[in-house]
C-alpha cells in the first residue's frame, strides 16, 4: 500500500492548516475584538473621541469584525501583512529580517544541543543505573528547570563580564562573516541549550534503553556481530526515531522561547519584535509576528512527522493490511 504515507501526510497537512486557521482566529480575536476599540487602546483613555474615531477609520477598525478578519486574512494570503502603526510602513520587511535573525539563533542552539543531548542520552542508556547515567539524568533535569533569564544572566556575568571570552552583545557588527556571527550567537544560544539538553538527553536515553532490551537487539548480539555494529545498526537506528521527532518539534518551541533571550541580549529577532509590537500596541505587527511563530511551529511539527514517516518503514511502506 504505497499511498499509506501519502494519506498519512495529507491528514497531517490538513490538521496543520486547521491549526493555522484556528491560530489566525485566536490572534484576531485577541488583538482586534477583545480590546473592543483598537484606536482607544492605542491612544489611551484620555484621548479626544474625534481622534479615536479618525484613527479607527484609518485602521479600518470601524468595519464589522468579520469583514476586518476577511480582509486581514486575504492580505496575508497575498503576502500583505498590513501596515505597522508604530513604524508607519509595511510590516513584512520587519518580520522577514527578524525571522532570519531568529532562525540563525535557533540554528546555533540546535547545532550545539543535538549532538550533546543525543550523545549524553546514549551514554546514559549504555550505563543505565550506574553513576554516569544518574549524573546525566540529574544534570539534565536540573538544567531544564532553570529559567532562561536566570541562566542568561549567569552566563553573561561569567563569560562576558568576568572572563570576557565572549561578546556581550548578540548583534554582530555589519558585514561580519559567519564565524564572527557564530561567536556572537554562542552566548545567547546557551540558555536555550541548557533548557533543551535535558529533554533531548532524556528522550534519547529512553529510546536507547528500550532498543537495548528489545528482542531484535538480542538477535543481533546472538548473530555474533561486533558490539559497535549492534549499537549503530540495530540499537540507535530504532532508538533515535522518537528523538528525531522531538528535536524537530522543539525547533518550533525554541523559536517561541527566544522572546526572553532575545530581549535580554538585545537581539533583533522575531521574539523581541513581537514583544516590542505588544508594548507599542502595534497590532498589525503583533498579529503577523504571532502568526509567523505559529506557522513555524506548525511547519516544524509537520517536518517531524515527515521525518518519522521517512525513517520508519512501517509508516513508509504501509502495513500488510
Amino acid at each position: 500500500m504505497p499511498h499509506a504515507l501519502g494519506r498519512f501526510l495529507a491528514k497531517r497537512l490538513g490538521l496543520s492548516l486547521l491549526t493555522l486557521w484556528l491560530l489566525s482566529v485566536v490572534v484576531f480575536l485577541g488583538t482586534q475584538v477583545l480590546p473592543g476599540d483598537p484606536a482607544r487602546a492605542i491612544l489611551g483613555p484620555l484621548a479626544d473621541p474625534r481622534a479615536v474615531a479618525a484613527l479607527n477609520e484609518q485602521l479600518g477598525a470601524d468595519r464589522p469584525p468579520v469583514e476586518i478578519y476577511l480582509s486581514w486574512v486575504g492580505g496575508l494570503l497575498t503576502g500583505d501583512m498590513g501596515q505597522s502603526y508604530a513604524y508607519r510602513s509595511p510590516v513584512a520587511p520587519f518580520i522577514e529580517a527578524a525571522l532570519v535573525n531568529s532562525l540563525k539563533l535557533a540554528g546555533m542552539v540546535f547545532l550545539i544541543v543535538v549532538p550533546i543531548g543525543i550523545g549524553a542520552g546514549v551514554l546514559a542508556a549504555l550505563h543505565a543505573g550506574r553513576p554516569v547515567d544518574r549524573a546525566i539524568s540529574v544534570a539534565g533535569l536540573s538544567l531544564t528547570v532553570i529559567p532562561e533569564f536566570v541562566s542568561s544572566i549567569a552566563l553573561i556575568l561569567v563569560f562576558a563580564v568576568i572572563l570576557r571570552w565572549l561578546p556581550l552583545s548578540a548583534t554582530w557588527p555589519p558585514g561580519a562573516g559567519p564565524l564572527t556571527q557564530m561567536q556572537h550567537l554562542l552566548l545567547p544560544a546557551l540558555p536555550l541549550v541548557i533548557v533543551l539538553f535535558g529533554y533531548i538527553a532524556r528522550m534519547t536515553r529512553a529510546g536507547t534503553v528500550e532498543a537495548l532490551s528489545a528482542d531484535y537487539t538480542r538477535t543481533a548480539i546472538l548473530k555474533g556481530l561486533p558490539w559497535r555494529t549492534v549499537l549503530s545498526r540495530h540499537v540507535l537506528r530504532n532508538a533515535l526515531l522518537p528523538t528525531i521527532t522531538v528535536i524537530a518539534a522543539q525547533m518550533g518551541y525554541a523559536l517561541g522561547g527566544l522572546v526572553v533571550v532575545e530581549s535580554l541580549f538585545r537581539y533583533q529577532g522575531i521574539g523581541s519584535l513581537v514583544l516590542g509590537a505588544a508594548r507599542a500596541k502595534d497590532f498589525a505587527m503583533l498579529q503577523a509576528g504571532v502568526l509567523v511563530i505559529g506557522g513555524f511551529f506548525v511547519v516544524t511539527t509537520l517536518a517531524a512527522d515527515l521525518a518519522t514517516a521517512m525513517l520508519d518503514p512501517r509508516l513508509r511502506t504501509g502495513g500488510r493490511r
Partner: protein
Amino acid sequence: MNAHMSPAASPVLRLDELSVSYSVRGRAMPVLTKVSLEVGRGEAYGLVGESGSGKSTVALALQRVLPPSGRISGGRALIEGQDVTSLDRAALRRMRAKTVAMVFQDPGRALNPSLTIGRQMAEVFAILGSSAREAAERSEAMLARVRISSPARVMGAYPHQLSGGMQQRMVIAMALAKSPSLLILDEPTTGLDATIEAEVLDLVDDLRREFGASILFISHNLGAIAGLCDRVGVLYAGRLVEEGPARALFAEPRHSYTEGLLRCLPRAGMRKGVAPLDAIPGFPPAPGSIKQGCVFAPRCGLSDERCRTIDPPFAVVGEGRASRCHYPDRVADLPRATPAPALAVPARDDAAVPVLALEPLSKTYDTGGAKVHALRDVSLTLMPGETLGLVGESGSGKSTLAHALLGLLAPDPGSRILLDGKALPPEVRSRSADEIKAVQIVFQNPDSALNRSQSVRRLVGRAVKRLAGLSGAAREAQVRRLLDAVRLTERQLPARPRQLSGGMKQRVAVARAFAGSPRLVVCDEPTSALDVSVQSAILNLLAELQAERQVSYLLISHDLGVVRYLSDKIAVLYLGRLMEVGRATDVLDGPHHPYTEALLSAAPSVSGERGTRIRLEGQVPSGLNPPTGCVFHTRCPRRIGPICDTEEPPLAADDAGHAIRCHLPREQLGRALATAPVAEPA
C-alpha cells in the same frame, strides 16, 4: 550423572550442574539449581516447564545473554567441548557467529523493524567473511531452503510486511544460515496459529535432518515437544525433575509433577461434564524458598515426611530414564487434585429457544474503496447452557464475530442477532442495561484486561454495580459470592492484579464477566496466556459455572484441545465464511471439510504420533481480494476441479444439522485422523 545415557561420544551441549541466580533487591534468587543434561549430535532435546521453571534461563545462560541481574553462579555449560562460562568476549562472539543459533518466541519482535529482511540475513554471512554480493546470494538461497517461494521479493521486504509464519521462517533461516552445531528454539510457535505452528514444526524437523544440527527445544507445549524431540527433560522450580525418551516419558511418567502436568491436558476423548480435568494444587514455589526436601513436595499428592525432609537424588528409573522422585513407581497412583464428580449435564432440549441466533451476520469493512468481507452470511444458533467453539486461523473473522456480538462494531444492514429470540440492537450504546449485561466477555490476557491500579474488590465491585445495579452491602455480598464462585477467597479482595498469579487474574476476569448473571459469555482465548496446570483449573471453572448457571459460551481458541473439551458445537470459519458447523462430536469425528481436516491434523498431541499432517500450501489469502468460488480453493488439498474456482459451494447440512460447505460429496470427505475418538468412560 548423565554419562550413561549420552547418545553420542561427544555431546554438542553438556550442562554440568549449571546454576543461575538473579539478584532481586540485593538478594540472590536461585533460578536454576545444578541442572545437568546432554544433547547429542543430531539429537533433538525437549525442555519442558511452566512459566518460572527456569527453562528460558537455560537458553539465555548458554549464550551468556542473561539480563544484567542474572549470573551463572555455578557449574559449566559446554558447547562443542568449550566451556561457555569461561569464554572471553572475542571467543564468545565467535561462538555466537558460528556454533550456536537461537530462535525465540515472537518472531515479529526478534527482527529489526527498520532493516529489510535481506540486510538482516546478509549480516549472518558477512560476519563469517562473505563479500556483500556473496552474502546476498547466499541469503537468497537460504530463504529458498526455508521454503519461501519468492526469495527475491522477500529479501527487499520489511518484517512488518510478512505474516507471523513467514517471519518465524526468516528467523529460522537466519539461525540456520551459519550451519550451527546447536540450534536453540525457545517457544518458537507460541502465539502462532495452529496451522502455522504445525508448518514451523515440520520445517524444523526437516531442516534438522538437512543440516544435521542438534536441537534444544524449549517449550511449555507438551504436544509440540512430543512431536519433535527424541528426549525430554522436565524442569520444575529450576531443577531437572525428570528426563527420558520423549515417547516413554509422556506415556508413562516417573515423576509426580510430569504426571500431574499430563493430567491437566484436555486430551482427545475428554469432555466437560464427563470428568473435570485434573489440576496441580497450589503454586510453584518462589525461587530458593524450598530449603529442604523435594521441590515439588508441597504440591504433590504422594508426598510424605521423607519427601519433605530429604531431597531425592536424580536416580535412574529405567532405560535412559531418570527421575528426581522418591517414589517413581507410584506416580500412576497420584490422587486426583480435583474431585471427580461428573457434573450434571442437563439433557439437550432442542425445542428451547436458542440463546443466540445469527440470521445471518455479515460485516464488511470499507478500506478506501476496497471492500473486505470480514464476515459473510454467518448463520449460527447456540442453545442455553451450551458452548460454541469458534475455530479458524488469524483473519478468519473470529474476533469480528465476537465484537459484533458485544456490540463493539455494527454489522452490515440486514444482519440479525437474536438474543433469547429477541433482536439485539447492533451497537452497544443502543442496547438496554439488561441486554448489555446478558453478553459479556473474558479476554485472553487478564493483564491488559484488568486495571492495574484497582483492587479486586473494586474491579469486581464496579462490574456488580454497573451490571447488576447493586450497591452497599448487597454489592459487597455479591462480590463475595462471585469470588467464591471463581474459587478465590476474601484474602484476595484488597489485592491488586500484580499481586495475583496469572490464573488468579483470569479468575477475577471471569468473576467480572459473571457479575450481572450473563446469558452469553464470549471467551476469547481464555487460557492461551496461561500455563497448562492453570489452564485446566480455568477450564474446569468455566465448565462448572456453565453447569450451575446455564450460561452459554462462545469460545474462541486456537487450541483444539480446549475447544474439544468445552464445546458442544463447533463452527469453522475461513476468510469470514462459515465452512463447517455442527455438534462437536460430528465436526471432530467427520466427515470433515478439507479445511477442518487440515486444522485437526495440525494439532500436536503428547502421544508423539504426528499422523499424516495435511499441509496447506501458501498463506491465507487477503480478505481484500478473496478467491472466487470456494474461498478455500487456493489452498485446498482436495480441490476437484474448475467448479471450486468458480462456484461457491452451499453449506449443506445432514439430518443432525452438521453442515459442510464443500463441492465434494459427503462420503468422499475425510474422517477423524488426528483425533481418533476415545471411548468415553462409562
